[in-house]
C-alpha cells in the first residue's frame, strides 16, 4: 500500500514537472510578445511625434518667413514687399499641402487655413500686420498644443 502511494507521488511529480515547464515557457513567451508589441507601439508613437515635430518646425519657419517680409513690421504691406511675400506664401502653401496631411491634426489644420486666409487679406490690404502676427501666433500655439497632447497621450499609454 505504502509502495503504491510512493509510486503515485513519483508519477504525479513526473507529470507535473513538464506541465509546469510548458506553462512557464508559455507565460514567458506571452510576456515577451506583449512587451514587444507594446515596444513597437511606443516606437511608432515616438516616430510619429518626431514627424510631427519636424512638420511643425517647417510650418514655424514658413510662418516666420512670411512675418519677416514686411520691413520694420510696417502696418500695411508695401509694394516693394509683395513679390517676396508671395514667394513666402507659396512656400507656406507647399507646407500646408505637402507636410500636414502626414500628421493630421484638426486644430492645426484649422489654424493653418486661418493663417493662409489672413495672409491673403494682409496681401490685399484688408488687414494689418498685427492681425497677421496674431494669426501666426495662434497657429504656433496650436502646433505646440498638438505636440503637448501627443506627448501626454504617450505618457498615459506608458
Amino acid at each position, binding site marked *: 500500500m505504502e509502495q503504491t502511494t510512493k509510486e503515485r507521488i513519483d508519477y504525479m511529480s513526473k507529470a507535473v514537472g513538464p506541465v509546469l515547464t510548458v506553462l512557464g515557457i508559455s507565460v514567458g513567451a506571452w510576456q515577451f510578445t506583449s512587451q514587444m508589441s507594446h515596444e513597437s507601439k511606443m516606437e511608432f508613437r515616438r516616430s510619429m511625434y518626431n514627424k510631427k515635430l519636424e512638420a511643425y518646425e517647417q510650418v514655424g519657419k514658413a510662418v516666420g518667413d512670411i512675418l519677416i517680409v514686411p520691413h520694420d513690421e510696417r502696418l500695411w504691406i508695401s509694394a516693394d514687399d509683395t513679390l517676396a511675400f508671395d514667394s513666402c506664401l507659396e512656400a507656406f502653401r507647399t507646407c500646408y499641402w505637402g507636410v500636414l496631411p502626414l500628421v493630421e491634426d484638426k486644430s492645426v*489644420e484649422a489654424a493653418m*487655413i486661418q493663417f493662409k486666409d489672413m495672409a491673403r487679406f494682409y496681401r*490685399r*490690404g*484688408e488687414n494689418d500686420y498685427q492681425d497677421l502676427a496674431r494669426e501666426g501666433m495662434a497657429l504656433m500655439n496650436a502646433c505646440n498644443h498638438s505636440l503637448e497632447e501627443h506627448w501626454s497621450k504617450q505618457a498615459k499609454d506608458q
Partner: protein
Amino acid sequence: MCSYPLLLSLSLLPAGLFAQADAAQKTVLDQLTGGTTRQWSIVGTKAAPDAACGTTDRYYTFQRSPAQVVVQECSGGKFASRTLPLTSWTTNGKSGIAFGGSSYEVKELHAGAPVCKGNANCIRLASVPDGKTDATTTIYLTR
C-alpha cells in the same frame, strides 16, 4: 476688513467678462442690422433689388428681431429670396455670426481697401474652417 473690496471685485469679475462678450456680440449684430434691419449688397452689385439682375448680383438683409437674414440671389435674371436664421457665436476670443450652415467672422474694412472699390461702408464676412473642407468663403458687402 481690507478684503471686502477685493471680494467685491472678484464677485463682479464674471459679470464684467460676460458683459464684455455680450457687448462684442451686440457690436457685430448692430453693425449688420443697424439695430433693426439693414440691407447690404455684394460689392459690385449693380441691379436694384426688384430689377433684372446679373449672375453675381446679390443682396443680404440682416434683421435683428427675429434674428434672420434674407438672401436675394439672382436666378434666371430675377432675384429669388430665401430666409435663413441668424445666430452669433464667440470662441477663443473671436466672435461672429452664423447662417446657412457656415460661421463667419465679420470685419469692417476701410474704404481704401481695393476690394471695397471706394465704398465707405464695407464689411467682410470670412467663413471659419469647419473641419470638413479646406475651402473658406469670403463675402464682401457694402450698402
